[in-house]
């Protein structure tokens, strides 16, 4: 009987495809495919239904299915298009088989349902796996990318390094900050480290705690840590929270912090003579006009 069902479906594939296409076309009104052009939608539908039939015919998953799903993933089609399509295919196929049978009892019905499920199930599973696999891949890539960005240490001058922090600090990142900071201080022989928190959206007690710990650790290895980039609203919340940041110097901007870092290392910025002259010349020439 299984073989009979299969040949029935395959022989009448045109009718089933027609019914399926009609139903899926109605789904187009749903939000997710509204931006896709009609032609592309139709050609994709045809391809989709061909792929479904070829995998039923071959009694297994074809490489066409993999190619098809890979292409849709790359084009950014939503997974719900495929799962909805398979759902519709199951419904349409069962309806069709039942309409072709003279006598329908519950046993027959359950056999038909089972058979169609056995066709549709593996395809859905494969599609969902392909999709979630590609998402997991993206997430893991982004996690690596984020980790690379998370705690950079920049040696800007001899004995002075800067660590700009951007974005939310969670416990994992706080650990990285501490490690990179201490490694970097020793590697670059830094006397002063500037931690810039301009890009940190919220400084709560946890973030403050980690910064205090990092600064304390830097102090233990003989360097000074200056916290810079404290925005006015962050300063207010730190005061409200009652966090004590008196143990190390803080500055409002990286520029001010850099100046005090130079002072700490007995240096200062001096404008060169020639530049002054050239500017004076420029002003003179402007006056002359």
């Amino acid at each position: 009987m299984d073989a009979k069902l299969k040949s029935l479906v395959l022989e009448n594939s045109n009718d089933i495809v027609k019914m399926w296409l009609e139903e899926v076309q109605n789904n187009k009104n749903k939000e997710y495919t509204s931006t896709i052009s009609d032609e592309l939608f139709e050609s994709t539908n045809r391809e989709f239904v061909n792929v479904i039939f070829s995998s039923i015919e071959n009694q297994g998953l074809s490489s066409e299915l993999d190619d098809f799903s890979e292409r849709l993933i790359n084009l950014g089609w939503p997974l719900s298009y495929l799962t909805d399509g398979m759902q519709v295919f199951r419904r349409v196929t069962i309806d069709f088989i039942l309409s072709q049978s003279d006598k329908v009892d519950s046993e027959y019905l359950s056999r038909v349902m089972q058979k169609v499920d056995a066709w549709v199930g593996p395809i859905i599973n494969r599609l969902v796996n392909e999709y979630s696999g590609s998402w997991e891949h993206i997430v893991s890539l982004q996690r690596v990318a984020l980790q690379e960005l998370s705690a950079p240490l920049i040696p800007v001058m001899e004995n002075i390094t800067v660590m700009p922090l951007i974005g939310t600090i969670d416990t994992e990142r706080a650990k990285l900050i501490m490690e990179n900071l201490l490694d970097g201080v020793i590697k670059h022989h830094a006397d002063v480290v500037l931690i810039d928190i301009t890009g940190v959206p919220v400084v709560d007690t946890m973030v403050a705690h980690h910064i205090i710990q990092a600064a304390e650790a830097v102090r233990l290895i003989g360097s000074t840590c200056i916290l810079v980039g404290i925005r006015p609203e962050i300063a207010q919340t730190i005061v409200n929270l009652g966090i004590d940041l008196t143990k190390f110097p803080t500055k409002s901007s990286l520029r001010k912090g850099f100046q005090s870092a130079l002072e700490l290392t007995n240096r200062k910025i001096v404008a060169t003579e020639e530049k002054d002259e050239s500017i004076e010349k420029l002003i003179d020439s402007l006056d002359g006009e």
Partner: protein
Amino acid sequence: MDFQSCVNIKKEWDIVGARQLGRDIAKKIGFGTVDQARIATAISELARNIYLYAGSGKVCFEAIDDMNHKGLSIIAVDEGPGIEELSQVMEDGFSTSGGLGAGLPGVKRLMDEFDIVSEQGKGTEIKVVKWLR
């Protein structure tokens, strides 16, 4: 009181989600940047307490729009172990996890109203309100 929305806290990154939603709502109500930062920080503390001590819970936001004043109310609910000594946790510098111990007293200072109900073994509910001035 027109709408309420909640964020479930299960992972550390849910704290960021709660904070962002709270900040968006605060911005819509019309809070300035300083109050937005205060609200975001308070949410961060409450959500982190849920994550650290209760494991899971939720943070709910409610915009308050009465005749004469507007504001934002934040309710943090969990079904964790509860807080043993309420007066102790409201003291500055008390912490069971090696933190700064400024969380709850800090939240009280950041916000205008602060209510805490905690029953051991049943959970904790903290309600805070910030009024728009």
